[in-house]
């Protein structure tokens, strides 16, 4: 029997997009599947509209809570250019799951910087294995635009090794009872993209 490797997931986005919930669900799904797990995320100033990064590692034994450069099997990004900002975490054969959503940074609105117009082309060039999706539109279709994090998570699940049951259990543990169905639908919409990468 081959030893299960340590799997690394990096989640990027903007404060308020629900990245911390997404990382918690991955961790609980890994726990439900019987793995050791470690997560890391930055709090504090990151809550105020800044870039947010969360990392999850699971496997038979996990040491560092931080993912090494070039070692993530999956990079998920809830905002378009945040995927480029953190691209170096992704392994050469890793899967990138990128929401097409644009959130303009204050540096752009105040005229200090430009939002790259060729972001989409750069993303396609950087990530040979890519799921580039309108996560906000898909979330709206299943009931609420704010569930785009779960759509992304569903798409991320296609690059990992965890059974569907573990994901469902983790979602039930992590969201309020009245939002469970909505979140399960959003997750399923993302997971249905399997094979399109």
């Amino acid at each position, binding site marked *: 029997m081959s030893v299960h490797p340590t799997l690394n997931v990096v989640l990027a986005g903007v404060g308020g997009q629900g990245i911390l919930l997404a990382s918690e669900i991955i961790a609980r799904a890994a726990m439900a599947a019987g793995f050791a797990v470690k*997560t890391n995320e930055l709090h504090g100033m990151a809550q105020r509209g*800044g870039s947010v990064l969360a990392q999850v590692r699971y496997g038979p034994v996990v040491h*560092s*809570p931080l993912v090494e450069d070039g070692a993530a099997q999956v990079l998920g990004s809830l905002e378009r250019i945040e995927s480029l900002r953190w691209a170096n975490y992704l392994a050469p054969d890793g899967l990138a799951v990128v929401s097409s959503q644009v959130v303009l940074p204050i540096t752009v609105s105040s005229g200090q910087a430009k939002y790259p117009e060729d972001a989409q082309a750069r993303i396609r060039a*950087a990530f040979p294995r890519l799921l580039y999706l309108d996560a906000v539109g898909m979330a709206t279709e299943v009931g609420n635009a704010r569930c785009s994090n779960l759509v992304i998570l569903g798409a991320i699940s296609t690059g990992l090794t965890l059974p569907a049951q573990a994901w469902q259990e983790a979602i039930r543990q992590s969201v309020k009872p009245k939002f469970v169905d909505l979140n399960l639908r959003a997750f399923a919409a993302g997971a249905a993209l399997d094979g399109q990468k």
Partner: protein
Amino acid sequence: MTATELLSGNEAIARGAYEAGVKVAAGYPGTPSTEILEALSEFKPEVYCEWSPNEKVALEVAIGASLTGARSMVTMKHVGLNVAADPLMTFACIGAVGGLVICVADDPGMHSSQNEQDSRHYARLARVPLFEPSDSQEARDFTALALETSERFQTPVILRTTTRVSHSRSIVAVGERSQLSKTTGFVKDPPRYVAVPVWARAMRRAVEERLPKLRAAACESAANRIEMRDPALGIVTGSVAYQYVRDIWPEASVLKLGWGYPFPDELIGRFAAQVTRLLVVEELDDFLEEHIKALGLACEGRSVIPGVGELSPTALRAARAKYEGRPAAPVHLRAENRDLPLRPPVLCPSCPHRGIFYALAQFDVVVTGDIGCYSLGVQPPLNRIDTILCMGAGVSMAQGFQKAGETKRIVGMVGDSTFFHSGMTGLLNIAYNAGSAVIIVVDNRTTAMTGHQPNPGSGQTLMGEAAPTASIEAIASACGIKRVRTVNPYELQETIRVLKESLEVNEPSVIVSRAPCPLEQGQPPGEALAINQEQCLQCLECLGLGCPALEHDEAQGLRINDLLCGGCRMCKQICPAEAISAKAAAQ
């Protein structure tokens, strides 16, 4: 079967404190330490928890509890320990009765801090034991161990984490609340508890006599262990660096120090004798390395391990190459990202602080700022803070600027929680020593930056009880400030008028800029606004507010993101074309 939970390091410390019978806990919020006390307060009423006005007060509260025999805990970030250093240094001599643990969370890499100090030095300075967990399980376990050690050796104990220990989550085996705090009641014993010179000299000798006993206990402790693998390389490490070492040098032997001070010399010597080469991997200062070299043992450390910023597996991979004399693997930039626009943290949409910054921008003054959300006012386009030093300095430094003869008027800015923390004493100084600075207290009724902890102005305690609301105006008057004004910062013209008045008179004054934090309230101040594109002059005056809801780029022009807009109406007030109005009206 043991119960397990997915806990952050901070939650695990709280869990450990609860299980080990902590009865009284106090602290002051500060990233990355804040969640320890928040999590511990979930165990009320068995554990009494409070947010104290500052870290010095918090430690003194915990010390009082310890002297009755109760187990106690105090929590703070690294710079908070500077504030609490005074009681620490003397209590280290008096010594604990009930176990007392000082939790201090360092922030290597300065994710949300003004400096990168290594708090391990305080353990050596005060000659008290230092525990450093490397994950959440150890955070729980070491908390209990630290309390036991504190009681056994009658000393306060420092439990030091870092951002990556405090904010990483991993699986923790938990237990029940067992060793209940033995509250004996205070037993009068002046030579033991009164630090006047005649008795303090004896205390001083006792500290020196305690040190070798602690050293011996550290050598025997389960918190310290030798993991023998390949004897060619032995690595001495601790805290989260241990976890990185296990990934980057999986074959190396390791001396893992969870109880790092007093340095376990005998254990270090034994490990060094078993390995060919010795390497010290520690984050921030060369605290262990310097001592190991002083023991006469050859080792490397700072020569290859970075001492500035935080460590990571990536940083240690490069350090390993350097240590082995190989070139580091070239950094291959996977995506073109050098020109990406930065995404710094920013004042929230409809944040009341924005109004006071807009008002300040109308005057050519020096603004001495302070620590809190309003620190973000230093960023463009607001650009309205000129200095940031430490908690309270926004008030105190203003006096120095003025007394030195700075020709511009001086405005000191401080938040409500920071005012209660250490701004009050600076204000008393300005009144007492005939200053003339204008002090603005931006009062949003909460400690917002760290996640909305209540403070003495909030009318509520950490335990959820109603509390008296401290009046900033009354405190200012009681200090001797005659000109005290209150403004609603959402009303820009009135705010500018009051500020102008205060700047024009040659006397000290206080302006309380009061409006509750909308994020804490859970609802924005109004309905989302919209721009009537036909009326808009594209003058971009409104962008000077630095509001994230006002979006502008060349492709799409100027617009209000109605998912973000909180309807605070500041942009509407400054629009010269009256192009901004309620969303329904604009359509």
